[in-house]
């Protein structure tokens, strides 16, 4: 038999690969898996529970009540003139989405080591499925937020949704990308250095206090102008401020700060993907 044309191979396994080769074709081929993983997360979340998906409501609701009591009533921290529960719930809903994306993706390699060690599929599918299944959770929590807005609206409490609401989908994408990017960087590094797994647990708590979840940016600007930069350059701050501004009409953000956030986010995301891709190939030997 003669070999007329050079062999065409479907898969070539080599030690190194192109850092920016995301294997998007592969990811697309496995899109059904993404859907099924999201479904698995959702279904297994409330299997054998009585309240089922209601648990999605309970956590933000109680957090809001506690925050209203502790930070609003006891500590008397300003809420930019907004009704305290509305202010906190807006912050919590947005922050939770980011934080969930971050914590879940940051442990992708360690929690899925068993699966990744036995079968190949594009690893990117798992962090993507986390972002999507958190989106469902976020949707439910947004519903709670909208219900509360309606509740206070009927009572005649003043807040002003405005044209910046249109930024919402964009903000959502930014949060997802930021959570995903940071999560992938951390997950890639935890395969070798487990220290980061401990860091992330309380680091995310601390980061929340550097973000305008329980206080508005305007207060920081007023009271602590020297430390203002720490909060302001935190990319999540301008996202949450823009989120509040769009829905409630109060918040301190400029298009410039949002643009900077976008650039930072894209940079983190790209770096995350590169690091993730690098580690993906051999992590099973070190994890």
């Amino acid at each position, binding site marked *: 038999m003669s070999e007329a044309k050079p062999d065409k191979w479907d898969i070539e396994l080599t030690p190194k690969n192109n850092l920016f080769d995301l294997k998007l074709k592969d990811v697309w081929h496995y899109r*059904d898996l993404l859907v099924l993983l999201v479904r698995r997360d959702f279904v297994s979340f409330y299997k054998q529970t009585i309240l089922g998906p209601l648990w999605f409501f309970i956590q933000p609701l109680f957090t809001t009540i506690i925050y209203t009591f502790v930070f609003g009533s006891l500590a008397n921290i300003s809420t930019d003139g907004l009704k305290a529960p509305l202010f906190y719930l807006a912050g919590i809903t947005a922050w939770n989405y980011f934080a969930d994306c971050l914590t879940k993706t940051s442990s992708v390699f360690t929690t899925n080591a068993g699966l990744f060690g036995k*079968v190949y599929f594009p690893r990117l599918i798992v962090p993507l499925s986390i972002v999507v299944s958190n989106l469902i959770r976020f949707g439910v929590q947004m519903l709670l937020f909208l219900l509360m807005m309606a509740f206070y609206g009927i009572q005649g409490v003043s807040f002003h949704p405005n044209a910046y609401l249109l930024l919402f989908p964009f903000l959502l994408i930014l949060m997802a990308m930021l959570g995903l990017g940071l999560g992938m960087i951390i997950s890639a590094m935890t395969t070798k250095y487990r220290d980061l797994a401990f860091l992330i647990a309380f680091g995310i708590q601390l980061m929340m206090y550097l973000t305008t979840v329980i206080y508005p940016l305007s207060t920081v600007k007023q009271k602590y102008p020297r430390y203002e930069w720490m909060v302001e350059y935190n990319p999540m701050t301008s996202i949450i401020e823009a989120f509040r501004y769009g829905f409630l009409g109060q918040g301190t953000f400029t298009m410039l700060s949002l643009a900077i956030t976008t650039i930072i986010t894209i940079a983190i995301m790209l770096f995350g993907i590169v690091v993730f891709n690098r580690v993906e190939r051999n992590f099973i030997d070190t994890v």
Partner: protein
Amino acid sequence: MATVIKVENLSKAYQLGDIGTGTISRDLERFWAKMRGKEDPFLKIGEVNDRSVKGESDVVWSLKDINFEIEQGDAVGIIGRNGAGKSTLLKILSRVTAPTTGSAKLKGRIASLLEVGTGFHPELSGRENIYLNGAILGMRKAEIKRQFDAIVDFSGVERYVDTPVKRYSSGMYVRLAFAVAAHLESEIMIVDEVLAVGDAEFQKKCLGKMSDVSKGQGRTVLFVSHNMDAIESLCNRSILLNSGMVVNNDTTDKIINQYLYSYKDELSSVVENLALSPKLTLDFNINTDNLISIGEDLEFSLSLNSPERFQLTDLSILVYNEREIRVSVIDFRTELDKVEGGITSLKIRGAVKGINLIPGTYKIKLYVKSGLFHDNTAELVQFYVRNPNVSEIIPYSSVVSGIVKFPYDVSELVVL
């Protein structure tokens, strides 16, 4: 036939010991070397993977410069001892881990079954897990839907298909998992020793399915197993690995012989001048070639010697299988009964007629009751029993095939 797998100079290094602690400086050093396009400084000192010998460096080559090609439709057995690199090879080919150097090229889709039931979620029902597991293995949803009935049928757990798999028995779990993988429409199927679980009927079903896949559908199968019989009847070609290197790549019967002969070197057939007690020594040997086919005789000779006279009342040869089960006892009390008084030396030669044990490794010990020594001896010699005729029917694995191979005749067969 076209080549579907081509492996060139493939190597894989593993680091021994702890990974992660105190490695930042090392990682930086490696990174710096890589940046300058130099060889990884910690791989240079790698050595051959021999787990029993303490090495100098903490990097070992699990695979070293592997080269081979596999043609479409071949069923290839990968044979080697523990640590020979079989699983590493399968891991690289199924893309779970990347090679350290070299490359492997493949054509078509790969279904790898390194473990059954990967990704099963205990809370989800059998039905949901079929979809999930199928998708993990790379099937599209429509494909799974089309095959769904066949999968359920093959697994034989139809009644439980809407029950969460955490309520399944372990056998049902494995059945369902294998069923999904078996119905994956791939050009290349990679199977690690996953069939050790499950009952005999199911093992047979799995092997039968794999045989269908390669012989009937012209797909390529790579199969790792320690069950030589299964490899012999399933695979037309085999690759023998030893310490991460390809020893040979040929037709299965040749490779299995080579493997067993290399294995044979570790089996001893002679014991000389073994001191049972300070004053009693033993010589023992069996067929010089300790590879025996079922039905052949096992010849042995033994002698006991002492400088002083001693009483010998009991002497037996004890045969044990791999699982330390005593398979048979050859009792010489009848012969000893004829001996009167003390002796200084005893010699016995004889043969066990027509060994009818199932294939595997067997060990021989001796039971001696005398004035000088009264106990079982340590393991003296080993022999390997192999199946001389390979049939088209795939034999059961040694775990389930019992101990004894009875010779039998069928005098009548009525089929209606």
